[in-house]
């Protein structure tokens, strides 16, 4: 069906498309190795985060934390803020985002368009500065609600109940699922569902490796691991640098006509690695990876054109995923 009562009802059920040109070639008669992309940019605000935002808001409404007119506070560097801004608008909440200055200008414009208020923390201070800013705001406004996507079970549940079942429905022969690791919600929820249905399925994480300026940590003990993260759900975990992410992002447009954001380039890099391993060892594989968003929001970085060195420089110090 292609008719919906409102934008909130059109979330999920995204297309899964084959990538025959990018999939590794195998000799005649050898088991096929196929790559598939799940297009989460086909959600209401153009990213996978719409699923989590809807689930988290509905859960908070159901347990009485969110009441009409409430203010939601969200420290975010991007897509979650945009998703929440749309859901908040339609459900009658106010959204305040705390974000670093070093995110792309499109994200800031989108948030403002959807009616979110933005408080910036200086890029130079990295996470520490963001922590200080968010703490101060929260202390001044104790009645504001934080949905805390890193520890909110509704985030992972959105994927357990929707992304996972959709993948298996569309690709019953799926052998590998690859996605980006941020809040870990996508991988935890989808991974648990797929593992329950097929214990042999491989769940693979790709995390962006930023330039060190972005981290801004003073020592190891200031690290963070999201509460949602459970390493036992994963089979493997890859760290993907800016150069590889940009290279794959460009390859996806060039070879398959798929225009994605840089985090998806990182995910495709890991997906290609496992697909080529399968091809080399003569094993059949259906590798599905998740396209978290399209490239529109990142055009202003300039990293889609020019040399790889220029692109790396352009993304240096940016939160590109």
């Amino acid at each position, binding site marked *: 069906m292609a008719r919906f009562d409102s934008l909130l009802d059109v979330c999920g059920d995204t297309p899964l498309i084959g990538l025959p040109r990018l999939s590794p070639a195998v000799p005649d008669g050898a088991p096929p190795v196929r790559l598939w992309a799940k297009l989460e940019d086909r959600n209401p605000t153009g990213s996978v985060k719409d699923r989590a935002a809807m689930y988290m808001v509905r859960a908070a409404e159901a347990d009485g934390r969110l009441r009409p007119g409430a203010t939601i*506070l*969200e*420290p*975010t*560097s991007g897509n*979650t803020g945009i998703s929440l801004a749309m859901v908040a608008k339609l459900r009658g909440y106010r959204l305040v985002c*705390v*974000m*670093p200055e070093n995110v792309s200008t499109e994200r800031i414009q989108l948030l403002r368009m959807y009616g979110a208020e933005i408080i910036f*923390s200086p890029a130079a201070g*990295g*996470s*520490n500065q*963001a*922590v200080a*800013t*968010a*703490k101060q705001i*929260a202390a001044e406004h104790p009645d504001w609600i*934080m949905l*805390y*996507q*890193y*520890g909110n079970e509704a985030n992972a549940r959105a994927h357990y109940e929707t992304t996972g079942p959709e993948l298996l429905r569309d690709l019953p022969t799926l052998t590998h699922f690859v996605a*980006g*690791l*941020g*809040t*870990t919600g996508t991988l935890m929820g989808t991974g648990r569902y797929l593992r329950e249905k097929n214990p042999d399925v491989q769940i693979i*994480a790709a*995390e*962006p*490796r*930023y330039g*060190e300026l*972005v*981290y801004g*940590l*003073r*020592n*190891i*003990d*200031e*690290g*963070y*691991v*999201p*509460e949602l993260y459970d*390493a036992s759900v*994963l*089979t*493997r*975990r*890859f*760290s*993907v*640098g800016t150069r590889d992410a940009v290279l794959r992002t460009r390859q996806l447009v060039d070879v398959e006509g798929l225009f994605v954001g840089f*985090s998806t380039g990182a995910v495709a890099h890991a997906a290609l690695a496992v697909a080529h391993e399968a091809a080399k060892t003569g094993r059949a594989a259906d590798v599905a990876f998740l396209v978290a968003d399209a490239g529109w929001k990142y055009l202003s970085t300039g990293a889609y054109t020019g040399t790889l060195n220029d692109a790396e420089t352009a993304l240096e110090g940016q*939160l590109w*995923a």
Partner: protein
Amino acid sequence: MAIDVRIPTILRSYTGGAKAVSGAGDNLSELLANLDGTYPGLRGRLITPEGGLHRFVNIYVNDEDVRFLGSLDAKISDGDTVTILPAVAGGAFGLAAAAAVLGR
């Protein structure tokens, strides 16, 4: 040939400021012991007193997380690149800020 080890900014005080150093060993455990000989104290920042990998440290062999390759037993060969990073994941910014607000 040796193993190329990338050191994060916050641990470069142990390597005299070097961003990348060379080490040797057949697995991660041996490599860290070898590095500690040249850069005393480095291993102690990565390994807990109980002998496991520090919770907020991620180590990658050729971009793959060693926790899924046998942790300290992860095999390493000459020519490999080992990357040490603080655990902050992709959502570093929001997570740090949100967790702090909630006092976690």
